[in-house]
């Protein structure tokens, strides 16, 4: 999967934040809507799309969506 598609899927886990707020360099934890439930949705999305397991620690470790994407690819 390309980074661009990952950014789109990442954005889909948010209910109230518009799609144009998301880019590869977005600091996702700084978004207003970010919280524990959104984090869990991201964990589920990665499982569904990549069949890979990321953890809460992985999500905390990364800052931008691109960093998270690279971490997922490296697993």
């Amino acid at each position, binding site marked *: 999967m390309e980074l661009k598609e990952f950014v789109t899927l990442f954005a889909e886990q948010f209910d109230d934040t518009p799609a144009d707020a998301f880019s590869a360099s977005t600091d996702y934890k700084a978004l207003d809507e970010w919280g*524990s439930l959104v984090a*869990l949705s991201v*964990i589920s999305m990665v*499982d569904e799309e990549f069949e890979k397991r990321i953890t809460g620690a992985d999500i905390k470790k990364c800052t931008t969506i691109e960093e998270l994407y690279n971490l997922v690819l490296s697993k």
Partner: protein
Amino acid sequence: MSHISVKNIKLCGMAGCVPSRVEENRDYALISPEEIEKYIAATGVVRRHCAIHDGSICTSDLCQKAAEKLLEDINWKKEEIDLLVFVSHTTDYKLPATAIVLQDKMGLPTSCLAFDITLGCSGFLVGLGVMSNLMASGCFRKGLLMVGNTQSEYASPEDRSMKLLLGDAGTVTAIEYAPEGGDEINISYMSDGSGREFVILPDGGSRNPVNEKSFIMEDCGNGIRRTRLHEKMIGDEVFSYGTFYIPRVYNEMAEKFNINPDDVDFLLLHQANKFLCEKLRKKLKFPPEKVPYNIQEFGNTSGATIPLLMVTNLKDELKNRPLNLLAATIGVGFSLGVAQIKTTGNIHVSELQMI
């Protein structure tokens, strides 16, 4: 993962007991009403039955009350009981084993084998696997599987993630040796201690003995404070692990034991929290009508969740017809179990007890 497959035993009856004292989540004073509603929406827990933890009600008391009622209802004579297994993290004492205390308090014969298993949320499936295997050879004829926890004791009052989630319950399942016409039990297990830090009560065991630091309230971020004598749970790690591995274990089990989901009557999910359970229900592709919940009333009661769900939600079905049940648990450890229980019916469920 490991698999067990047992016939030759029959579930005869089940009972549960909860404290009559209720804690309403909407009464929690430390966060705003809006935050409480968000929490209730995410976890599904509206209220929990919790004992006052002064020794007046222990898990063993809840299990004993349930057991006395069940034995009366199914007409079992105490002198015939030869196996008692008590599964809990909230034992009466560090030693002796609570099962042996119960042997004496209940007046069971001294010929009974009685022992504890220290497990949490996976407790019912591990206990069932152990007991059914012990009994399948006919060496034990009538056994009681007691599973419960009064783990609300371990929640810090300033840790909403635990305080508003954990409830107390004790359950008992009566199992008998049935060389013909028994139930069929298939269970797959995983044990993964790499997850040990994610659900843990750090101090008070031999590894970190109690010391002055154990009692200090520590700031854990997000307004949460707890001591090292309170239970700590990193929810997203449990979610990540459970939603990844339970479906994979189930798929392997389904293939090994030829399970057709259309033939399954009910999927019993450990009542960890509704968000996690709904994720699992959808991943395992079961419709809502096949997946009962009682988390709204009782919270997460650890090992008791599956048997308590059967007592509160499936009383008539368990009695009236054979059932093809699936159960899935992810528990502290991590200890994971997925089971298929094909009953032959006529399982008596006693009225829910309260003390």
